[in-house]
């Protein structure tokens, strides 16, 4: 490349770099600095430096531990379920037939709609039997003579009700990514496998799966990060209740900043969360490399 091309290349990258610096890196650095000061939400200036006091208060608060545990359970449940469901849908709809294409659209549709709107709708679907009416799911259960369920109003069921809704909502996008990977696999490989006498399962196990493994890792990583950022669904459907069973880390941060008006504490929680998400992403990346090296 000559000098002129270097300059042109730099000019092309510069706007993106400037935006990332301004809206991603600077806020991250700012979060870490704010987390070691006493500072209220509306204070125009930082209060005194307080070292790790905000972090100590954070780890002393049982609500933070609870929200971290809820978020972990949610992520551990959503990631395998959603990835598996997305793969099943991708295999099922990987065909030019119009009926399969219609199915593909209907599975993809929830990802296009607003999560807020979907949360409101699902709250109505999950509504328990009450004096003035019954939600759709409980109506179906009652119609089938099965016991009705409290769903969102039970501390034991609420998080799982949100897991199911989130899997349904998110699987469509992952399905599209899997579909793209499936369509990259050359047909000759299946032909060769069939000539060697491989049945459908062996074709899937030895042709499809190895070919889409890198995509699967990508999907798992993206889903993990999305799942860890859980906020909208419980905030709208349960407000973190009942009895704190659906409180997420992001809601904890929001409440620390805007209710407790404690920016120092909120930034400490944000910093801990940031480090945790980074560590998980890096761990997954390393795992991917190990698997790739083995192949």
């Amino acid at each position: 490349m000559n000098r002129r091309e270097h300059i042109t290349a730099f000019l092309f990258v510069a706007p993106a770099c400037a935006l990332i610096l301004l809206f991603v890196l600077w806020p991250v650095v700012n979060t870490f600095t704010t987390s070691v000061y006493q500072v209220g939400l509306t204070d125009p200036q930082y209060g005194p430096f307080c070292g790790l006091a905000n972090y100590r208060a954070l780890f002393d608060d049982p609500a933070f531990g609870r929200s971290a545990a809820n978020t972990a359970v949610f992520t551990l449940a959503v990631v395998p379920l959603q990835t598996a469901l997305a793969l099943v849908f991708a295999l099922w709809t990987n065909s030019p037939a119009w009926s399969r294409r219609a199915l593909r659209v209907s599975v993809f549709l929830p990802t296009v709609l607003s999560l807020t709107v979907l949360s409101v709708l699902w709250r109505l679907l999950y509504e328990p039997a009450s004096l003035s009416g019954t939600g759709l799911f409980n109506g179906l259960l009652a119609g089938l003579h099965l016991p009705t369920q409290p769903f969102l109003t039970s501390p034991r069921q609420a998080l799982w009700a949100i897991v199911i809704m989130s899997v349904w909502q998110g699987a469509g996008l992952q399905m599209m990514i899997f579909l793209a990977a499936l369509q990259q696999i050359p047909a000759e490989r299946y032909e060769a496998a069939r000539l060697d006498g491989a049945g459908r399962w062996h074709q899937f196990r030895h042709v499809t799966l190895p070919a889409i493994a890198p995509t699967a890792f990508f999907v798992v990583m993206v889903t993990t990060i999305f799942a860890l950022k859980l906020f909208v669904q419980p905030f709208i459907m349960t407000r973190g209740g009942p009895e704190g069973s659906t409180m997420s880390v992001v809601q904890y941060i929001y409440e620390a900043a805007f209710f407790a008006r404690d920016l120092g504490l909120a930034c400490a929680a944000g910093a801990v969360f940031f480090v945790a998400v980074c560590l998980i992403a890096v761990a997954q990346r390393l795992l991917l490399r190990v698997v790739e090296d083995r192949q």
Partner: protein
Amino acid sequence: MPVRARIFLVGFVAVVIWATAQCRRAPEDTDTQVITVWAHHGREAENLAMRRIIDAFNEAHRALGLRAEITFFPDRQYADKVSIASASGSLPDVLEVDGPYVGPWAAEGLLQPIDDFVRSELRDDMLPSLIQQGTFRGSLYTLGAFDSALVVYYNRDIVEKNGLMPPGRLDDAWTWDQFLDALEHVKPHAAVPLSLHMDDQSDEWFTYAFSPLIWSNGGRLIGADGLTVVGVLDSPENTAAIRRWQDLFQRKLAEPTSTNPNPFAAGLAAFDWTGHWMLPSFEHTEGLRFGVMPLPRTGSVAACASGSWCWGLSRDCDDPAASWLVIEWLLDPEQGIQPIVRANGAVPGRRSAFALFPEYEHMPRRLFREQLESAAHPRPRTAIYLSLTSAFARALRDIALGADVQTALRQAAESAQRVANRQHDKPGPSDNRP
């Protein structure tokens, strides 16, 4: 790069720069002093009325060289918007404040006291609930043009046909036992004996609607210092009052969640625990015959809720005396109160303003006025109000679903106390305690 593209690029940049410069060019009358006003975005009729009030102010103050400019922000984001503007030092001169925010914003030094501007005639003419709402640690920070009232509506066709005569006066408010008896009585005749709007998405509804149970039983939400919660929110009086409230759900007299946001208008509910804001829609519901009664008492005193949007001067206001003129105009019975109250249906905030509203001589509005003049409590004004209200609302939601009252209130108290303790350690404007 081809020449044509270069010309295009230069032209484009020039247009962008020109457009940006245009945005910055505010109307520059050097003689006019602009007072900036921020308000929440209400219903369309309300916003229109607000604009008219401000236009009339500008007309009347043209000779003085004053001009008010109002900006509306969506209701849900209004408080966050103000908090962020405060941190960046870009608050307007005059701020609309939702009642419960008076405590946090005054404690954070975001508002400045207005005692010096409020003449005694004005102070005496205001509803006492509005003076209380605007007072934080002995100083007055806000005044509002209107207030709210919380009552129990009843369906005459269900309630009176079953031989019940609900009271119309505060002094005759039912006791909790009388109320439960009445609900049991109408239970066979109504799908929902009592509608409590437990599906409300805001935390504030719960604190607004059910704190009167605690006050009526002699309890408080938070200590007088505004920072003691443990031992106060979970006191024996409060536990007893909230247990009585939990009876409603356990005896299936009210539902802890609801698929129907408005069963009363549909004729499904016998009683509806809600505010003045539902009155106009009930009045326009065909075939609905209803009456209004005060909240039942859990203890020896009748208590009811109050609180609404009010006006204050911000920390960044450079000319408080000129800005006060805007608030004074907004509180003027004819210029400010009449147009806004006609648009939003709230209760006028000044005694003298009732002369313009003859409907307050008769039921049901007579009860709204009577409550606000004698028994209304605003929610507590404390720096930690937002944590307190969210903890209390969370506890009430769980209690309605069957959680143990004592445990839920204790956990709520502990979670709010944690915030209060950190507030206590913090230096700054919040430390100016009397």
